[in-house]
C-alpha cells in the first residue's frame, strides 16, 4: 500500500508498474529510440554528454532537470531539429526503427514526418485558418486527395480533443483560438501527418492550469498510438502523465526509471535533491 501513495496517476496507467516497484529500469521489448553514447556540442560547449537511453515505445517518457541541463537539446536531437542551430555537432547514434538517424543517407525532413514535435509556445501559422493549419503538413508534402484531407482534418482534431470546440469555425484563423486551444491545434497539426512519435517541449508551460490539465489528459490518451517524449519543468506534470522519467543534469543523464520509482525513491542523490527541491 505504501508504494501506491506517491503515485498521482490513474490505476489504468499504473497497475502493472506497481507490482514491481523496485525493479524498474525500463526494459521495453522494442524501444522507440535506442540512444547510444550521444554527445552534442554547440560550438565548443558540450551540451549533451554521452547519453545512453532506450526510450520505450507507446509510453510517455518525461525528461526533467534544471534549466540548461540539456533536456530540450536532447529532445531536439531525437528529430534532428537541433541542426537548425548553426555550428552544432553530434557524436554517437540514435536508432529509430532500426536505423541510425545520423547516418549520412538519412533525410532530416523524412525523419521529422515520422517524429513530430510540439513546442513550448503554441505557433499556429498566422496566415492560415484552423483547417489549413491542421492540413498544412499533408498539403505541403504533396497530398491532394480531398477526401483524405477532410478525413484527416476531423480525425486529427478529434484526437487533439478540439473537434467539438472548433468544428463550426474551421475557416477561422488559427490564431483566433485561446492559448490552450492553439496548443491543441498544434498537436492536431503534428498528428495529422501520422507520425509514430510525438516530441513535446514543455507543451503546457505557457498555459493556465485547466488548459494544462486538458493537454495532460490528451497525452494520456495519445500514448495508445504514439510514443511520447515530453520535456517539462513541472515535476507534478511529469509524475502525473508519464510512465518513465529521465533526470538530466548538466548535459548528462543521471537517472532513468519508472516514474513512480523516481518520485518515491530515486536511486541517485542528485535526483533526490532536485525533485525534493534541495540546494544543489
Amino acid at each position, binding site marked *: 500500500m505504501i508504494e*501506491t501513495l506517491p503515485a498521482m496517476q490513474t490505476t489504468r496507467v499504473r497497475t502493472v508498474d506497481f507490482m514491481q516497484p523496485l525493479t524498474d529500469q525500463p526494459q521495453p521489448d522494442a524501444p522507440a529510440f535506442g540512444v547510444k553514447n550521444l554527445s552534442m556540442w554547440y560550438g565548443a560547449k558540450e551540451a549533451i554528454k554521452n547519453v545512453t537511453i532506450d526510450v520505450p515505445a507507446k509510453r510517455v517518457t518525461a525528461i526533467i532537470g534544471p534549466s540548461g541541463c540539456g533536456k530540450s537539446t536532447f529532445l531536439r536531437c531525437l528529430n534532428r531539429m537541433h541542426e537548425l542551430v548553426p555550428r552544432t555537432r553530434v557524436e554517437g547514434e540514435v536508432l529509430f526503427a532500426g536505423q541510425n538517424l545520423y547516418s549520412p543517407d538519412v533525410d532530416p525532413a523524412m525523419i521529422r514526418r515520422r517524429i513530430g514535435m510540439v513546442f513550448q509556445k503554441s505557433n499556429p501559422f498566422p496566415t492560415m485558418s484552423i483547417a489549413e493549419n491542421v492540413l498544412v503538413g499533408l498539403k505541403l508534402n504533396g497530398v491532394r486527395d480531398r477526401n483524405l484531407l477532410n478525413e484527416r482534418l476531423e480525425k486529427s482534431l478529434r484526437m487533439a480533443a478540439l473537434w467539438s470546440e472548433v468544428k463550426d469555425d474551421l475557416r477561422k484563423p488559427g490564431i483566433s483560438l485561446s492559448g490552450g486551444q492553439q496548443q491543441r491545434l498544434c498537436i492536431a497539426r503534428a498528428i495529422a501527418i501520422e507520425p509514430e512519435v510525438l516530441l513535446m517541449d514543455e507543451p503546457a508551460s505557457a498555459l493556465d492550469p485547466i488548459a494544462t490539465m486538458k493537454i495532460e489528459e490528451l497525452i494520456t490518451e495519445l500514448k495508445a498510438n504514439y510514443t511520447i517524449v515530453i520535456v517539462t519543468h513541472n515535476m507534478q506534470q511529469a509524475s502525473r502523465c508519464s510512465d518513465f522519467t529521465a533526470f538530466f543534469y548538466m548535459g548528462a543523464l543521471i537517472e532513468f526509471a519508472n516514474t513512480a520509482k523516481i518520485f*518515491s525513491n530515486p536511486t541517485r542523490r542528485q535526483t533526490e535533491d532536485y*525533485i525534493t527541491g534541495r540546494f544543489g
Partner: protein
Amino acid sequence: MEEKRHILGTFDEALRSLRENVLMMASLTERNLNHAIAGLLQRDDELCALSIADDAEIDELEKQIDKDGIDVLLRFQPVASDLRRVVSAIKMNSNLERVADQAVSIGRRARKLNQHPPLQEIELIDPMHRHAVAMLRDSVDAYMREDAALAREIKPRDKALDEMNSNAGRTLTERMGDNPEQLRGYLNLMFIARCLERVGDHATNIAEDAVYAVAAEDIRHMHKKPAIEEQHSPEV
C-alpha cells in the same frame, strides 16, 4: 551524510514541526500507558483516571498532526524521501493514537481491579508492559533517527510479546478454574495483557513505517502467502 536544506525554508519548517508533533504525540502516549499500568500495579485510581482523561489531549494532537500532514501534502507536494516521511508520520500518528486508546482501556480495567482485593497474578503484567513500552520507544526512535536497522529489529521482538500474552492467557485461564469467584478479575487481567499485546502490534506498524520512510521498502506481511498479499496490492 548531512541532508541539504530545501530551497523553500517554509517547507523545512513545516516538516520539522510535523516531526516535533509526532515526537510529542509519542511521548504523551507513552506517559498515558505508564500511568495506566502504574495505576494497576500501585492500585492508584487517580493514575488510572489520569490515563483516561489525558487521552483527550492526544486525540486533539492526532487531529492536529493529520491536518498538518495534509497541509504539507497540499502546499509542498513532497516527493521521494520527503513524501515518505510525511506519509509515515500520518500513519504513525494513527498508530500512536490507538496505543493511547489501549492505555484508556487498561486504565478502565485497572480501576475495576482496584475495587477488589489484589491478585497475585498481576506480576504477569509488569514484564509485558516493559517489553511493549521498549518496543514502542525504539520504533519511534528508529523513525526519528532514520535508523532502518533498529526499525527492522522491532518485528521479531513482537513475537516475544505475543508469547508472553499467550502464556498469561493460559495461566489466567487455569486460575479461573481454580478460583471461580475471582473470574471477573482474571478476565480483566487477560484483557489488559491483550491490550499490551496490541501495543506491541502498533509498535511493529510504526517500525514498518519507519523502514518505509528511511529505505522506501515495504516489509509488511512478508510472512504471508502471496495469495493473501494480493489483497494488499494497490487499489488506487
